[in-house]
């Protein structure tokens, strides 16, 4: 049996990598991908803890997260597509309509 903390540390590392990727990358699609990575890191933590708590509820939550992520991806990509059509760019620096 692989210890719980191995998985948890892997989950932490993946999460931080996702966050950094979001910060470092400059195109919207890849930034969106890094969000998916963070979500997956959370999923990993859920399933790990579900195993150690000997309960199936954690897996159910992951199931819901995946569903919500699918919905989110559909909407998010639609928005990105729209932005690209209107602005002809997906560089996140070029999109600052909300500048105060």
């Amino acid at each position: 049996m692989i210890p719980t903390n191995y998985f948890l540390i892997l989950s932490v590392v993946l999460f931080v990598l996702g966050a950094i990727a979001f910060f470092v990358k400059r195109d919207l699609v890849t930034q969106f991908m890094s969000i998916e990575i963070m979500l997956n890191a959370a999923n990993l933590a859920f399933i790990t803890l579900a195993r150690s708590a000997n309960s199936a509820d954690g897996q159910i939550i992951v199931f819901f997260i995946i569903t919500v992520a699918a919905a989110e991806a559909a909407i998010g990509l639609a928005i990105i597509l729209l932005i690209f059509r209107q602005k002809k760019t997906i560089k996140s620096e070029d999109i600052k309509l909300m500048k105060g």
Partner: protein
Amino acid sequence: MTEIFWLIPFIPAASTLILAVFGKKLPKKYVSFQACFAVFASFVISAISAVGLLQTAHGNYPLVKNLFSWIQAGSFQVNLSLMFDPLSAVMALVVSGVGFIIHVYSVGYMADDEGYTRYFTYLNLFTFSMLILVMASNLVLMFVGWEGVGLCSYLLIGFWFEKHSAANAGKKAFIVNRIGDTGFLLGILFIFIHIGSAEFTAINEAISGGAISVGLATLIAILLFVGATGKSAQIPLYVWLPDAMEGPTPVSALIHAATMVTAGVYMVCRMNLLYTLSETAAQVVALVGAITAVYAATMALTQNDIKRVLAYSTISQIGYMFIGCGVGAYAAGMFHLYTHAFFKSLLFLAAGSIMHALSGEINMKKMGGLRKYLPLTYPTFLIGAIAIAGVPFFSGFFSKDAILTRAFAQGQYSAFYYFIWGLGIMGAVLTALYMFRLVFLTFHGEERLDPEVKKHIHESPKVMTIPLVILAFFSVGAGYIGLPVVLGKKLNFFGKFLEPVIKEVKEVHLSIQTEWMLIAIATFVAFLGIFIAYVFYIRSPLIPRNLATRFPTIYKLMFNKYYVDEIYNAVFVKPTIKWSKIIYDNFDLKVIDGAVNGTATATGFAGKILSYFQSGLIKDYGLIFLLGVIIFLAYLLF
């Protein structure tokens, strides 16, 4: 079947909602059908529930339906709960029954009005509020209904708001009522402070348990009565009611004669234990009622506006109801309320029918001899007049007699009540006099019609005359459920019905001879009044004119309504406006506006600074979010 009583107010409420939202798109026919049907349904349920009450054992009163807890803060709790007991039953029946008839009448009366749907929306809303008022199981919810009917009254008085006088009359009614409501609210607060609950059952228990001293009871009772004088148009707050006649006539009949203005009487009857406990307060009620009864009657004598005469008559008759409450005859007061609802709404509707026939003419000086043109309006109006004048065998006689008999009987305890009785008798003469003055000037004598008006004269359509006939029937027959005690106690069915709610503390007995004598006096004064009117306005019309010229001061005083409006204007309205102006100029413009503008400037400045952080770049927001997470985690860890 009585459990469904809580539906009574909510059917008109639902109808109001539908009319308010979809009203503009609905056809007129459907609007009238729905509005009338909603009130009729309420009436049917009221009737079923009332029959159910008769079969319920007395101990099971009142039926209470707690819908939900409305306000809860510490020990302060108010439920939205409805109650059904004989007192509520009588009121609910009157409101929905008379209300239904008036709704039907309005279909004809308002047929050509542009605001047809708006009118019925308001009317349904009024029915709902009034039913909430009479069925509330606590003072706070009752106050909600109380304000609700006030609002509807305002809306309906100012129904033709493009007319300046109508808009002003609405405002006047609203403001005068606010003054009374202040007293009413203070009374509720005192009850809350000293009893801890506004539920009627709890209040009654506390009062009969001796939790309230007589002094406190007097204070509360008088504060509540101040509210009643506002809503029920008694001295000194009666001034709004005559002006309220600016509204459509069916509204005057429903709100300003039959139901809303009697809310004060209902409230006093509802709190009857309080008024029984405090004799002072009861005497105040009786005195105000008696003085108003006579005072308003004198003003009715000189008015030429047919609706205003009826308005003063209403004030006077409500005075009688308060006499009944003040002398301890709550059942009789309620009885007069109940009979008055029929004959007064009949009189108003008949007056409306006259106006309808005469293209809106309301000046009696321009009528006369209408008897032959209005073959249905005339007899019904006459029946109403006879009933209100107190001629035996008509409903008004029984109720008025019950009140005056009780007042006289109370004279055993204090001569004060003989005085009240005397005023009552005087008022009765005047009532018969002004009512028959109205009848004679309108329907008899020479024609004084405008030739232009005369061309278009016509009897009203059936939808208006049938309600008149129904009301006329009740104006005669409604009294027979409360026959005088002298004919046998069992025959006073009305009093028996109300007994569980109204605890008659002092039993008063009069000898049979005295009672018959009182009945004879009441009969005599009614006929006396009619006779005087006959002499004055048919036989020798010169007498009133001579009287007016011989006593010009008195006549002018009465004709100008004792200049009360002018006095109020000079004493209260003008100084208020003046001081408001001073405060507006100095405080509102400088301090409050300054503070508001200052806040706005400061906010704008802060916003400008903060907007530098809003780069619009999603990455920056992500970075700040991440930093926030780091700080938050650090806080949790260390």
